[in-house]
């Protein structure tokens, strides 16, 4: 069943054309964001160069004369660069506002994962080559040299523990392994990376010639480690705690949207100070028995008011099932706001929003806040059954008011189309093309939110239409 809802029939009253000023604003915003992204990547790459340069400044270039020296030097270089990359990984996961606002969560996570692969390889090289280098210069076996270090200082034992932990973490993070593990288990193992880093730090200072003899290098790494630790403390623990304590959010109203979907309104003070933009998400923890040990990422489904935030939650089992019975008055702990699924990511005046399932929620919020040029904006809602078009009344009203076209696509999925690609549209509309809905698609910002499979298929479709990466904005959640 396809329904084309109201297209604005009457032209708006003659007004100055808003398009140029909107275009200008968004272009400036996009430029600033690009500069920031470039800046972050610049810092990341140059920091790697600095770690190598410190090695050179200590006379490292001359340490390749003999085979054993060369092996040791390769090992040292691998250790230095891996440590630098590891710190970058931690910073990416620290939820630092500028990183979150510039890169967004999906991109930061994929960068983190990519760096992770290199770090593990680098650490293995570090271990193998450095011990080999020392062993060669003493005409001992690799194992004998390893055992020597093992017996010589406890710091080495701790470093070995750190190495083992890193290997375990990387094995469990490989896609195949991760699918088999429950999320809580995977997450707990991943948290052990803090232990791994801590265990590795002592040997860096007591067993390294570079750190001990060269005062500048020693202080550089101490400062780097300290700053990273500080960033983690402040942005992962400190600020969320402060936000929670300051805003004193409690559940104020729970409304049933459908039998398995509720709206939870949360009220507190100084909500505006949280700085949430429509479409962003928080990590929510409801402090009630049975609920407090689950933390959920939910987008707000309406623009924030002076003292209220609203989320829309669907019962998907596990934690969300318990949430269906949350009572007004429950205290709420938050972390956030996070995400680039908001007006801050806009680059052009045209916009298309495509949502499915409870992914409709952030789109509903965005619709309230983002600039819309009547006739040059479209909202596409996808559902298997009509009951799953959540918040349809609100969205219909907003579209009518703001001049955006609304298209609902209901029905079971068309698995494969004539060309053999997986489609996201309903079976009976298997050949529907987005450009029929939004002819300006190639120039528009496109926001996509829904389950993984759906989002992947939509994005593939968009790229096929020539929409560039910089104008595709997605949000995914770990279910």
């Amino acid at each position: 069943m396809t329904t084309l809802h109201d297209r604005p029939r009457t032209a708006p009253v003659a007004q100055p054309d808003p398009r140029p000023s909107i275009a200008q604003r968004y272009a400036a915003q996009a430029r600033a964001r690009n500069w920031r992204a470039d800046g972050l990547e610049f810092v990341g790459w140059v920091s790697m160069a600095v770690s190598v340069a410190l090695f050179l400044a200590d006379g490292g270039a001359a340490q390749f004369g003999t085979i054993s020296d060369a092996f040791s030097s390769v090992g040292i270089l691998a250790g230095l660069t891996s440590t630098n990359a590891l710190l970058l990984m931690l910073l990416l996961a620290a939820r630092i506002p500028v990183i979150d606002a510039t890169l967004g969560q999906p991109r930061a996570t994929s960068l983190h994962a990519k760096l992770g692969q290199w770090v593990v390889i680098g650490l293995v090289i570090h271990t193998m080559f450095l011990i080999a280098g020392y062993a060669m210069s003493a005409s001992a076996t690799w194992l004998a040299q390893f055992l020597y270090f093992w017996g010589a200082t406890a710091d080495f034992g701790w470093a070995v523990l750190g190495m083992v932990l890193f290997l375990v973490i990387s094995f469990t993070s490989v896609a195949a392994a991760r699918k088999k593990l429950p999320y809580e288990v995977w997450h707990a193992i991943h948290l052990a990376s803090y232990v791994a880093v801590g265990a590795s730090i002592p040997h860096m200072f007591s067993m390294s010639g570079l750190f001990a003899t060269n005062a500048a290098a020693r202080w550089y790494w101490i400062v780097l480690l300290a700053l990273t630790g500080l960033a983690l403390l402040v942005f992962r623990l400190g600020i969320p705690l402060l936000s929670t304590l300051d805003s004193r959010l409690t559940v104020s109203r729970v409304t049933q949207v459908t039998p398995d979907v509720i709206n939870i309104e949360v009220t507190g003070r100084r909500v505006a100070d949280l700085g949430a933009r429509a479409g962003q998400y928080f990590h929510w923890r409801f402090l009630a028995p049975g609920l407090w040990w689950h933390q959920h990422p939910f987008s707000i489904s309406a623009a924030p008011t002076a003292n209220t935030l609203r989320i829309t939650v669907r019962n998907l089992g596990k934690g969300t099932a318990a949430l269906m019975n949350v009572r007004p008055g429950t205290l709420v702990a938050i972390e956030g706001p996070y995400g680039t699924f908001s007006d801050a990511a806009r680059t052009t005046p045209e916009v298309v929003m495509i949502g499915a399932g409870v992914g409709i929620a952030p789109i509903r919020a965005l619709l309230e806040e983002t600039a819309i040029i009547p006739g040059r904006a479209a909202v596409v809602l996808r559902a298997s059954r009509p009951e799953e078009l959540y918040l349809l009344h609100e969205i219909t009203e907003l579209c009518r008011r703001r001049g955006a076209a609304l298209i609902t696509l209901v029905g079971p999925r068309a698995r494969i189309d004539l060309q053999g690609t997986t489609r996201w549209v309903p079976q009976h509309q298997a050949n529907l093309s987005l450009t029929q809905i939004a002819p300006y698609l190639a120039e528009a910002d496109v926001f996509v939110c829904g389950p993984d499979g759906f989002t992947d298929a939509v994005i593939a479709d968009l790229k096929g239409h020539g929409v560039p990466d910089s104008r595709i904005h997605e949000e995914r959640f770990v279910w």
Partner: protein
Amino acid sequence: MSTRSKTAVLLASAGVLAAGWQIGTAQGQTTALSTDTATTTTETTTATPTATPTTTTPTTTAPTTTATAETTPTTSASASTSGGATGTFTGATASNRFGTVTVTVTLKAGSITDVSAKATIYEQKSARYVNMALPTLKSEVIAADSADVSNVSGATYTTSSYLTSLQSALDKAGR
């Protein structure tokens, strides 16, 4: 990442690496004449051929070689061929990852007559690193070179067992 920022990263990284390289090679030059001893892999670097302990005897009375009073030990032996520096110059102690090496150069009329390097093994250990006595294979024990040995340490010999000891052989040879 745009081409603009890619270029910026390349340039900045190249600059940083070049600076590090520069500092590294500049440091290596301050200990003039010591380049190959600084990269040796054994802890105990030994002197180049000429010097044996016996040459120290002339210096007990008065160091005859320090003719010019103003030649304080310099870190770079500026042995100009015209003037012809004479004396014993001790270079700055160079650190490499295995320890410290001090190079001493003896010059006579501008030419190097002797170079010796002394490695200090028993320098101050960091608080964390405890020098434990570990099980060691015979093959891992540092070999003795009887040519260098001046004294022998073993369980105390009596006056009679001394006569057949290694120490008595050394004492007879006047070492």
